[in-house]
């Protein structure tokens, strides 16, 4: 596909949009109304999470129907932050997500480049083996993986989460697809100019990879921030948990005046950072998610 056709096909409907938008026909408004109702239902659960976090136990543990608390309060937040190491969980999550994202992007870029731009013994084999691991759910290998991590002596350390998840098949796949699109000519030109293989990569190929890195960072960060099962299995001390794992330990915790309020407060803390990233980098997010689907 050439870029020319892409721009023309997307431009035509857009200019048509502008002409028609001045007078949206009544049937369109009906559609908008239906979509608005649907959107309200779709967003409601997250709205309700925030509302419940701000509602006192007395009102939320009742059969009363309300959409906004009588007296919004931060009591749930103060209580859960003072009785649980929530700040530690946030710190652990930030550390693990940031380090894993950085590592996995480096690993994926290297692997993607090798698989796309070199012919070498074992290329097909490695590629097939990598892709096959997408099919294998983590639950199948979780006990053996734990045994491996335990043998290396990493249990309960952040590295137990970081190292195994730094290998990201989807990231490698996306990187390879992108690198296939980088013209061989520019790599060759660098070689002709006398640049070594690594210089060619770092000073010629890498600078063209901006959009790729953006997509990889967003996808990896979201996956690592939200990750649950593997961190739950390898992290054990209450101080060492990540936010989602910590959150899961709070349900049915009898220590709280309002367990649901405490749970919703931590849930809000879990979602807000990723939601903020989504709102700022919406385009890259959607692009990233789509590129996982275009196989």
């Amino acid at each position, binding site marked *: 596909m050439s870029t020319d056709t892409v721009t023309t096909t997307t431009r035509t409907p857009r200019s048509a*949009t502008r002409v028609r*938008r001045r007078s*949206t026909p009544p049937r*369109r408004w009906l559609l*908008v109304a239906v979509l608005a109702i649907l*959107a309200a239902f*779709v967003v409601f*659960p*997250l709205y*309700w999470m925030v509302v*419940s976090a701000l509602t006192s136990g007395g009102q939320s*543990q*009742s*059969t009363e129907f309300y959409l906004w608390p009588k007296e919004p309060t931060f009591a749930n937040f103060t209580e859960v932050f003072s009785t649980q190491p929530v700040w530690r969980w946030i710190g652990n999550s930030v550390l693990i997500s940031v380090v894993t994202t950085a590592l996995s992007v480096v690993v994926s870029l*290297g692997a993607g480049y*090798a698989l796309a731009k*070199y012919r070498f013994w074992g*290329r097909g084999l*490695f590629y097939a083996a*990598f892709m096959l*691991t997408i*099919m294998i*759910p983590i*639950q*199948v*290998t*979780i*006990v*053996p*993986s734990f045994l*491996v991590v335990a043998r290396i002596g990493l249990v309960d350390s952040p590295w137990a989460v970081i*190292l*195994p998840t*730094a*290998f990201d098949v989807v990231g*490698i796949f996306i990187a390879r697809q992108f690198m296939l699109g980088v013209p*061989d000519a520019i790599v*060759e030109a660098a070689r002709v100019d006398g640049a070594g*293989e*690594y210089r060619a*990569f770092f000073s010629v190929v890498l600078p063209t990879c901006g959009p790729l890195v953006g997509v990889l960072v967003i996808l990896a960060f*979201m996956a690592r*921030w*939200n990750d*649950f099962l593997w961190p739950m299995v390898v992290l054990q001390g209450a101080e060492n948990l990540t936010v*989602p*794992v910590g*959150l899961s330990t709070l*349900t049915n915790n009898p220590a709280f005046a309002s367990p*649901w309020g405490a749970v*919703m407060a931590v*849930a809000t803390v879990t*979602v807000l950072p990723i939601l903020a990233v*989504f709102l700022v980098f919406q385009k890259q*997010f*959607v692009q990233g*998610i*789509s590129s996982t*689907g275009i*196989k």
Partner: protein
Amino acid sequence: MSRPAETPVPTGRRGRRLTPYVFLGPAALLFLTFSLVPIVIAIALSFQDTQTLGEGQWVGTQNFEELGSDRLFRTALLNTVVFAVGTVPTSMAIGLALATALNRPLPGRGLFRALFFVPMVAAGVVVGVVMSWIFNTDYGVANNALEILGLGRIPWLTSPSMAMLTLILVVVWTRVGFCMVIYLGALQSVPAEIVEAASIDGAGPWARFRRITLPMLAPTTSILLILNVVFSLQAFDIIYVLTGGGPGFSTTVLIQYVFRSAFQDGQMGYAAALGLVLVAILLLFTLLRQRASKKAESFL
């Protein structure tokens, strides 16, 4: 997607022959340590009888034979099918409907796209706890609202017959935005000229959709189908937090059962065998689907 031109073999200096291994090295090392070794151990475990962390005993294919007479395995298999059939076509149909609606000029189109996409970014654990609160039988906002409307309270998660339905509803909620985004991308590549030509020939909107848009989306539908089935067969976090596989075993799907066998029952050999059966189902489905979509393409 067009096939990229074949990469020329870098000729010349010998050092170059090692370069690809350096670039691939970190990935290969992590893959061997944390993927391949565990997979090999899992396969070995599936032929053993093990108690938690104790020495296993080789029992041949006994674990696989036991599956045949395990009633819980059959329940889990049936639940998995119900869950996949309940979530996959529904999410894809709603996603396609939303994409079609949002592919035309509409006020607030960008905002709608963002809003429908938002559930995608929430962690499975968060979705689990928030939904179990909303669908709480006694204090949940869903039942409180139903009561205001004069309808009775529904045991969303506490009755075995309702729990699977609620679970499907929740998972569809998280999945619709994904399907919408992928379909939106595909719809933009349907040439407007063909659709216009058909409408000049007198084809109504429904006929245009069925005869032109839908066939042109077939490759996307095929990919989405595979991805959604993989997602559904691997769905764990939400189920684990929302229902824990219960009440009873009403929402215990295969992946839940694998986890349960390994961690609650301490039957790691049996869990490994169960897991491999699940992987076999996934592979089989992907292969069948790929063959079917190749056939479909040759017809077009």
